[in-house]
C-alpha cells in the first residue's frame, strides 16, 4: 500500500480551504448587482388564500418586485415533481398532487410560500414582506399520519381521497397469515419512527443569474446533485432548456439527503432573476429551514415476528403508515417502499415477509430521504422485533441473532434484495469482544450499587447502498437511471483532473477519489484534482446520496482509468519501440517486459499530446477517457453496533457510557474518513433515539422549530466511540466497496432503544427517549413487577 493509495488514512486535500475560512459556499458568492429574495410564508397549516394585496409592500423602499403564485402560473412555470412512481396494490398509480413553487389558491403547511419580495437588500425585502397582506381562510388541519385516513379528516388534495397517496405492499398476505396462524411464538411491536429535521449546518441557499445576451440562466445552489436539479428544473418545471441552464453546487455544508431534492426557492429565484433582470439571492434562515427543508422518517408501524420453538424465525408481518407531508418531494415515494420494505429481512433468514405501506398527506412539511432513508426505519422494526422476541423466549439476544443469521451467500431474501457477501457473525463476535460483553454483568451490578440501571443493546443492521442498477430501479418506478459517470483528463505534463458526477458535501471525495487515481497511475496525490458540482464542467451525473459515491462513482472512475491505461500502453509501445503486449504498467512506469527500457507516466502523457511518435490515424492524440458505470446490484454493508447505557432512575436521564461499532463496508479507501462517517452517522442515530423530534401541535404548527426547541445532539451527549471493521469484499463492483455513509444512522436507534429497554425491563419506550419517557418507563416497569 502506498502512502496515498487505497487503504491509507490520507489527510484531506479539501481541508486547507475549510480550516482557513476560504471555502466557497453558496451564500459566500455574490454577483454584481444582485438583489435579495425574501419569501412570504403561510403562518397557517391549511388555508384558502382568498387574495394577496401587495400594493403597500410594493411602495416600500428598495422593492423591485413582488411575485405571487398567480404570476408563476401565468408565466407557465411548471410544478415540482416526485420522480419515482409507486403503484398501489390495486395497480393504480400514486396520487401526486400539484406542487407549485408558490402556492396559488391554497396553502398546505405552515411555511408554504405564497409570494416572494425581491429588493435591493435583504433587510428591505424582509421589511416589505411584512407589509404583504394575505387574506387566508383557515381550514382544519391534519398532522398525525395515523389519523390522516380517518373518516371526516380534513382533505388536503382533491386528487387524493382520504389523504392517501398509495397503498403499497410486498409479499403474500395470505401466506403470511398462514404462517402466523401456526406460529409457536409471536413477538409484537408498535413503533413510531419519530419525525426528524435534517439540519445540515449550512442552510439552503440559491443565487440565480440571467444572461440576456446568451438567454441563459445560472443557478448556484446547495445541491447534492446539480445535474438532477438541472434536469428537473428544465424538463419538468420548464424554466429553460438544459443547455441554457447551468447549475453549480459549490462547497455544500452538509446534506444528509435534505439537499437532494428540488425545492421551490431555487425555481423562484431563477424565475425572478429573469423577470427582474438582476441576479437574485436567497439564503434560508434556520427558522425557515425548519419549515421548508424536507423532514425525515415519520412512520407509524405495527409489526410481528413469528418464531418456532428453536428460536428460528418463520415469518414477519409489517403494517406501516408513512407521512409524506403536504406535497410529494422528489424521491419521497421510494423511501417507505423500495428503500424500506426490501430491507426487512435484516441479517436474517426469514422465509416469509409481508409488508403493507400506506403513504399519506398531512399538513406538514414534505418528508423525503434523510440519512439512511427507509433503511433506518426498517432496521428499527427488525431489531426491535428480534430483541423483544429474545426476551419473550428467554434467549440471549446475541444468540437469537446468531441462530437466524444468513450464513451462505449469495442469499436471495423474500423481499427482493439479493445479499451478495457478508459475514454477520464475524462482525457481531468482534464487536462483542471489543465491547467486553462478558464483563457487562459485573458492570451492571456496579451501576446497581449506585442505584442506576444499566442496559446493553445490539443492533445488527443491514443496508442497501450503491444505488443503483438502472434497469432494476426503472422496473420499480424510478424516473432516472442510477449509474454514475467519470472523466479522467490527463494533462500533457502528467497531472490529472477527474470529473465526477458525484458531489461532495463533507464526504472527502477530493481526497478519496484522488487516492484511487494515485494508486492506479502511480502518481503523487498532489498531481490529482477532483472536479465536481458544475453542470458546465462535468458530464451528466447523478450526484451523491445513498452511499453511492464509492461503490458507483469510484467504479466509474476505475473504468475510465482502465481506458486511460490501455491507451497509454499503446502510446508507450510506440515511444519505446516495443510490442504493445510487452508493455507492463506498474508504479507509474511503462516498462518493456524483461528490459530496463521504461518511461514514466508523465513522459507518456506528454508523448500522447505531442503526438510525434505514433500513427495518429490509428491512435488519436491526447489522453482523456470517460466512462459510465451502471452497478450490477445494490451493495449490502452490514455490521453490529453495541450500545451500553446507564439510567438515573430518579430523573430518567439516560447516559450512553460505551459504544462499539464493527462494520463491514467491504474495501475501505480511507479508514480515517470512513471512521468519521461512522461517528457522524451514530450521532444522528443517537439524536433520533434520545433527543430529536419534529413536534407539531394539532393545528399544524411546528412547535420544535428552532435550535432552542429542537434538541440537536451536542458534544456532551456522546462518549468516545470505538469503531472497527471486518471486511468481506463486495463482488458487485470492481473495487469491492460497499459504502459507509449511512451505517451509523441506521444502526444506532435500535441499539439505543434495545439498551434502554434492557435496562428498564419494559418494552414500550418511544423515541426520542427523553428523560420523561424513560422515567415513565422505569415507573411502569416497577408497577408491573409489583403487580406480578
Amino acid at each position: 500500500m502506498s502512502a496515498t493509495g487505497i487503504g491509507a488514512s490520507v489527510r484531506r486535500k479539501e481541508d486547507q480551504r475549510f480550516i482557513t475560512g476560504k471555502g466557497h459556499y453558496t451564500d459566500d458568492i455574490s454577483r454584481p448587482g444582485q438583489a435579495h429574495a425574501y419569501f412570504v410564508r403561510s403562518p397557517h397549516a391549511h388555508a384558502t388564500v382568498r387574495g394577496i394585496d401587495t400594493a403597500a409592500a410594493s411602495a416600500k423602499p428598495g422593492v423591485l418586485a413582488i411575485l405571487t403564485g398567480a404570476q408563476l402560473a401565468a408565466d407557465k412555470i411548471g410544478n415540482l415533481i416526485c420522480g419515482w412512481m409507486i403503484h398501489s396494490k390495486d395497480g393504480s398509480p400514486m396520487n401526486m398532487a400539484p406542487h407549485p413553487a408558490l402556492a396559488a389558491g391554497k396553502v398546505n403547511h405552515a411555511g408554504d410560500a405564497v409570494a416572494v419580495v425581491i429588493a435591493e437588500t435583504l433587510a428591505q425585502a424582509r421589511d416589505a414582506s411584512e407589509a404583504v397582506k394575505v387574506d387566508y381562510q383557515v381550514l382544519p388541519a391534519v398532522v398525525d399520519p395515523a389519523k390522516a385516513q380517518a373518516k371526516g379528516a380534513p382533505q388536503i388534495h382533491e386528487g387524493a381521497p382520504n389523504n392517501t397517496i398509495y397503498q403499497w405492499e410486498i409479499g403474500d398476505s395470505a401466506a403470511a397469515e398462514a404462517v402466523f396462524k401456526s406460529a409457536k411464538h409471536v413477538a409484537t411491536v408498535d413503533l413510531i419512527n419519530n419525525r426528524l429535521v435534517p439540519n445540515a449546518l449550512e442552510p439552503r441557499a440559491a443565487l440565480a443569474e440571467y444572461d440576456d445576451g446568451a438567454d441563459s440562466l445560472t443557478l448556484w445552489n446547495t445541491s447534492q446533485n446539480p445535474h438532477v436539479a438541472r434536469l428537473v428544473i428544465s424538463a419538468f418545471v420548464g424554466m429553460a432548456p438544459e443547455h441554457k441552464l447551468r447549475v453549480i453546487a459549490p462547497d455544500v455544508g452538509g446534506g444528509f439527503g435534505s439537499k437532494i431534492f428540488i425545492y421551490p426557492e431555487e425555481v423562484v429565484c431563477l424565475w425572478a432573476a429573469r423577470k427582474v433582470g438582476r441576479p437574485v439571492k436567497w439564503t434560508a434562515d434556520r427558522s425557515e429551514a425548519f419549515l421548508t427543508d424536507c423532514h425525515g422518517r415519520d412512520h407509524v408501524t405495527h409489526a410481528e415476528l413469528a418464531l418456532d420453538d428453536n428460536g428460528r424465525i418463520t415469518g414477519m408481518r409489517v403494517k406501516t403508515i408513512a407521512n409524506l407531508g403536504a406535497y410529494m418531494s422528489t424521491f419521497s415515494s421510494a423511501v417507505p417502499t423500495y428503500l424500506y420494505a426490501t430491507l426487512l429481512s435484516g441479517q436474517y433468514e426469514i422465509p416469509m415477509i409481508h409488508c403493507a405501506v400506506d403513504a399519506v398527506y398531512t399538513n406538514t412539511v414534505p418528508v423525503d430521504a434523510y440519512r439512511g432513508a427507509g433503511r433506518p426505519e426498517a432496521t428499527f422494526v427488525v431489531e426491535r422485533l428480534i430483541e423483544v422476541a429474545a426476551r419473550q423466549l428467554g434467549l440471549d439476544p446475541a444468540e437469537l441473532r446468531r441462530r437466524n443469521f444468513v450464513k451462505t451467500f449469495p442469499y436471495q431474501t423474500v423481499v427482493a434484495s439479493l445479499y451478495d457477501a457478508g459475514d454477520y457473525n464475524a462482525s457481531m463476535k468482534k464487536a462483542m469482544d471489543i465491547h467486553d460483553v462478558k464483563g457487562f454483568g459485573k458492570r451492571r451490578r456496579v451501576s446497581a450499587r449506585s442505584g442506576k440501571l444499566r442496559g446493553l443493546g445490539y443492533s445488527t443492521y443491514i443496508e442497501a447502498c450503491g444505488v443503483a442498477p438502472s434497469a432494476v430501479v426503472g422496473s420499480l418506478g424510478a424516473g432516472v437511471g442510477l449509474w454514475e459517470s467519470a472523466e479522467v483528463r490527463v494533462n500533457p505534463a502528467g497531472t490529472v483532473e477527474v470529473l465526477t458526477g458525484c458531489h461532495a458535501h463533507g464526504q472527502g471525495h477530493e481526497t478519496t477519489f484522488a487516492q484511487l487515481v494515485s494508486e492506479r497511475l502511480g502518481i503523487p496525490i498532489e498531481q490529482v484534482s477532483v472536479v465536481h458540482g458544475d453542470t458546465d464542467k462535468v458530464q451528466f451525473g447523478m450526484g451523491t446520496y445513498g452511499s453511492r459515491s464509492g461503490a458507483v462513482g469510484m467504479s466509474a472512475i476505475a473504468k475510465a482509468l482502465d481506458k486511460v491505461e490501455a491507451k497509454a500502453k499503446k502510446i508507450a509501445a510506440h515511444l519505446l519501440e516495443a510490442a504493445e503486449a510487452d508493455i507492463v504498467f506498474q508504479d507509474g512506469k511503462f516498462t518493456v517486459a524483461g528490459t530496463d527500457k521504461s518511461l514514466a507516466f508523465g513522459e507518456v502523457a506528454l508523448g500522447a499530446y505531442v503526438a510525434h511518435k505514433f500513427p495518429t490515424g490509428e491512435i488519436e492524440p491526447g489522453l482523456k477517457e470517460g466512462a459510465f458505470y451502471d452497478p450490477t446490484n445494490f451493495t449490502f454493508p452490514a455490521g453490529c453496533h453495541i450500545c451500553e447505557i446507564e439510567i438515573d432512575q430518579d430523573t430518567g436521564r439516560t447516559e450512553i457510557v460505551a459504544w462499539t461499532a464493527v462494520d463491514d463496508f467491504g474495501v475501505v479507501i480511507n479508514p480515517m474518513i470512513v471512521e468519521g462517517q461512522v461517528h457522524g452517522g451514530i450521532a444522528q442515530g443517537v439524536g433520533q433515539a434520545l433527543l430529536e423530534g419534529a413536534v407539531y401541535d394539532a393545528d399544524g404548527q411546528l412547535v420544535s422549530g428552532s435550535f432552542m426547541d429542537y434538541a440537536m445532539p451536542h458534544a456532551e451527549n456522546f462518549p468516545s466511540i470505538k469503531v472497527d471493521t471486518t471486511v468481506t469484499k463486495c463482488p458487485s463492483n470492481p473495487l469491492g466497496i460497499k459504502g459507509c455513509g449511512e451505517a451509523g444512522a441506521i444502526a444506532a436507534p435500535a441499539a439505543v432503544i434495545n439498551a434502554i429497554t434492557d435496562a428498564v425491563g419494559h418494552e414500550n419506550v418511544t423515541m426520542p427517549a427523553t428523560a420523561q419517557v424513560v422515567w415513565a418507563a422505569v415507573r411502569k416497569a416497577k408497577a408491573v413487577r409489583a403487580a406480578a
Partner: protein
Amino acid sequence: MPTVSLTVNGKAVTADVDPRTLLVQFLREHLRLTGTHVGCDTSQCGACVVHLDGKAVKSCTTLVLSINGSSVTTIEGLADANGPLHPMQEAFRQNHGLQCGYCTPGMIMAAVDMVNRKGNDLDDHTIRKELDGNLCRCTGYHNIVKSIAAGARAMAGGAGQQAAE
C-alpha cells in the same frame, strides 16, 4: 448612516453602516470575509464565532455599532498571512475534525478561546462541556474533541497565542 471603526485581523477598517447591521453581516458583506458562517438565527450553533478583543463571541448576535473601536479576529486572521497554520487549524486537519467544513471556522475559534481560558491540558469531558455553544452535524464531535485536545497541546509550544491578542 452611523460610522463604525474596527481593527479586523490587524487592519483598521471604517465604514458607514445601517444601525441594525450585525457583526457577522459586516464581516461577510462589507469586508467579504466569508469564512465566518451563519448556521442559525438563535445564537445556538456557533458557526459565527469570532474573537472580539481576544474573547470568543457569536458575531450573529453582536451589533457592529456596539463594538466600535474594538479588535476582531476571524478565521481568516487566525494565522499569519504567509506563515504556517495556527496549531488549532493544523490539529483539525490532522485529526479529521471536519467534514463539510461549515461549522469549522466557529469550532476552531471557539477551541482557541477554550485553550486561552482553560489551558493546554484539556480532557475529553472538559472539551465536550465547553463545546455547548457549537453544533456540528457531520462528525459526531468525536474527532473535533480529539482535534481540540491535540491543538491545545500544540499551542503550548508557543505558536498561536497571537489569536488571543
